């Protein structure tokens, strides 16, 4: 049967079992919206800004491993979506973005709402397509889904000119796709894995360092099993939190710029490092030269060969899908007679416990001012550590990462690579659509929340009972912290003047709002929000200590062991 391009788009999405599409209509996607209207298998979520559509689809994917899908119009629809696409790209999140384009005959003529979408998005997608013939449409969409989720995942964009959505052709949706130019590796090289195991068993001071690849590939169980078999310490990156239970003794917490003292020291001092789905980025290892000062053997498991030996030289590279490689490694550990030398391992743990006893996440709490860390701790208690937590970017993001102990994967949803303010609220929406019964908290600041505050309206329309915890210190806190530490206390433009009354604002959108300014009220307010107002969106505006800083801190360009631990050291 002959179908129009618009019908084909919808049929393809149905074939892919897509349940939710996040989007915003416009001229060049009208035929597609018309077809959406005529069916009820796919639910469309109307956001209030295209950036939010992409963040929501992104978090939908992060929190469920289903592929998030968004639909935007040409020109400004796409340019608004770019920040979201780049955010997903930096964190390797599988997404399919469908964008409208002006009719084929108008391309290149500076038509109304025309933008070179393929050109603009090229550097921030895994791949993109411009569909020039309706006959190519179904296969292109199939390819988009295939590319998004295989290999190192990422966003894939399909740009469809309006005339293509009106033209007709036979519909045939391919069952499988094979591309001669794209064959991602899955299994790791057995010989390399054997070499890695030997290094691990010979180690005196071994360390496991796990990143977002563990979460993306659903390898948390296998990572946990392997780590327990080996009895080694493990640290996680910001993107890897939840890949190993944070409350377990073998977990040293997060490492990096705001990592714990024990994680950073162990990372620096270890003699054999097993990196799993992590990429040694600048916020994680600080200065590569300083990191290289201590001789250590590095084993690196990653699905993307270009992540290996990019910032640090690796001794045993293992290219493969993390769970497949871990399976093989676990198998080899189990059949191997050898064990890591218990005496060396015990003395290494003793050293680590000495570092841990510094309790680098302690903070001072008075009775007058709410400490932001305290809010996160209370959220953890009230939600039993079982909430999905999204965040924006800045100090609150680091406190959330440090004080909410994630025991499960896909619960911590944040923009790690690109560091996109405005991510948290739309992300919370996406989480809730992917996990309709879940408790969802968005930890944010008064700066970030205003970058996508319009989504309070979307939350009202779709009855999303998200709890927003705004750590309001009246500053762009992380900017202020850097200005205090590195720019002589000159707080250039980091004071957020003329803040709205967030309680009234929440109420104006039809939600519930609280302002909390005393430490004693923190827990009762959170409890009231999560229990009494379980089914409503609650905006909790916490007036927190304006001067609180995030510690420990490794200043940009410094070495991991050169941490500033507290205010007194400034």
């Amino acid at each position, binding site marked *: 049967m002959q179908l129009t391009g618009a019908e084909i788009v919808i049929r393809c999405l149905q074939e892919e079992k897509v349940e939710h599409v996040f989007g915003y209509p416009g001229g060049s996607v009208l035929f597609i919206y018309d077809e959406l209207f005529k069916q009820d298998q796919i639910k469309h979520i109307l956001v209030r800004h295209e950036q939010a559509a992409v963040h929501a689809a992104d978090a939908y994917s992060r929190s469920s491993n289903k592929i998030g899908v968004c639909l935007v119009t040409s020109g400004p629809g796409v340019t608004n979506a770019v920040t979201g696409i780049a955010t997903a790209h930096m964190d390797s999140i599988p997404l399919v973005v469908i964008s409208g384009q002006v009719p084929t005959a108008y391309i290149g003529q500076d038509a109304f709402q025309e933008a070179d979408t*393929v*050109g603009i998005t*090229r*550097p921030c997608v*895994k*791949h993109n397509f*411009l569909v020039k013939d309706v006959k190519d449409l179904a296969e292109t969409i199939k390819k988009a889904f295939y*590319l998004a989720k295989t290999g190192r995942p990422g966003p894939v964009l399909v740009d469809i000119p309006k005339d293509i959505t009106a033209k007709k052709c036979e519909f045939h949706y391919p069952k499988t796709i094979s*591309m*001669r*130019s*794209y064959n991602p590796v899955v299994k790791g090289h057995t010989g390399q894995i054997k070499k890695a195991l030997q290094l691990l068993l010979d180690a005196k001071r071994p360390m496991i360092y796990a990143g977002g690849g563990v979460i993306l590939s659903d390898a948390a169980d296998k990572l946990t099993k392997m780590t327990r078999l080996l009895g080694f310490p493990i640290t996680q990156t910001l993107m890897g939190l939840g890949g190993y239970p944070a409350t377990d003794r073998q977990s040293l917490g997060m490492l990096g710029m705001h990592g714990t003292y024990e994680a950073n020291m162990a990372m620096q001092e270890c003699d054999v490092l097993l990196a799993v789905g992590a990429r040694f980025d600048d916020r994680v290892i600080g200065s590569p030269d300083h990191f290289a000062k201590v001789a250590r053997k590095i084993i690196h498991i990653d699905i*993307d*060969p*270009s992540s290996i*030996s*990019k910032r640090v030289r690796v001794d045993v590279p293992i290219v493969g899908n993390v769970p497949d490689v871990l399976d093989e490694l676990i198998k080899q550990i189990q059949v191997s007679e050898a064990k890591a030398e218990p005496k060396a391992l015990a003395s290494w743990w003793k050293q680590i416990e000495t570092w841990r006893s510094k309790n680098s996440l302690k903070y001072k709490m008075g009775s007058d001012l709410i400490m932001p860390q305290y809010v996160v701790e209370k959220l953890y208690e009230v939600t039993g550590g079982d909430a999905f937590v999204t965040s924006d970017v800045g100090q609150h993001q680091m406190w959330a990462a440090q004080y909410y102990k994630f025991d499960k994967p896909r619960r911590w949803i944040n923009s790690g690579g690109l560091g996109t303010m405005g991510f948290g609220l739309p992300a919370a929406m996406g989480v809730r659509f992917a996990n309709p019964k879940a408790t969802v908290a968005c930890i944010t600041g008064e700066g970030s929340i205003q970058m996508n505050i319009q989504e309070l309206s979307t939350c009202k329309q779709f009855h999303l009972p998200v709890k927003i915890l705004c750590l309001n210190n009246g500053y762009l806190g992380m900017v202020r912290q850097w200005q205090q530490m590195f720019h002589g206390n000159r707080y250039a433009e980091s004071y957020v003047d003329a803040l709205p009354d967030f309680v009234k604002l929440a109420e104006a959108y039809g939600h519930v709002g609280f302002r909390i300014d005393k430490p004693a009220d923190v827990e009762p307010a959170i409890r009231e929000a999560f229990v009494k107002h379980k089914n409503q969106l609650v905006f909790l505006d916490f007036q927190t200590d304006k001067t609180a800083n995030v510690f420990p801190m490794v200043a940009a360009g410094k070495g991991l062991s050169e941490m500033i631990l507290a205010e007194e050291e400034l």
Partner: protein
Amino acid sequence: MRHIISILIENEAGALSRVSGLFSARGYNIESLTVAPTEDPTLSRMTIVSIGSDDIIEQITKQLNKLIDTVKVVDLSEAAHIERELMLVKVRATGKDREEMKRVADIFRGRIIDVTESAYVIELTGNTNKMGAFLDAIDRSLILETVRTGVCGIGRGDRILKV
């Protein structure tokens, strides 16, 4: 170090910009880039000359491989290979220079492919050094314009880059 990287890539619209965009986005250097379809019109072959440390060249080949349209990448300079480029030079050829120009072109095995009363167009093929040597050998003030294709290269003997 100077490297010659050969790429087989799907002959799709935008393939060239994916490659050139990758180089500019990651700050890699391009000395020259040539591209044309192969005997199989669905495939293009590119030759890129780049200068960088071993680490950078390793990253370049990995990043090129990562492009979805890339079928194969090989660093030709890792083993025996042949490289050629083509140059067209328009020179002033009057009076005694006319004879001298012809002589130098012959020495470099160049061919004069266009003749007017006042100028020659000389066609020259060879490696990059030969192009430079020719330009050095003639009187610079007589050069009216030059155009070069950039390097293309191929492995020697059994080294074959094919799907």
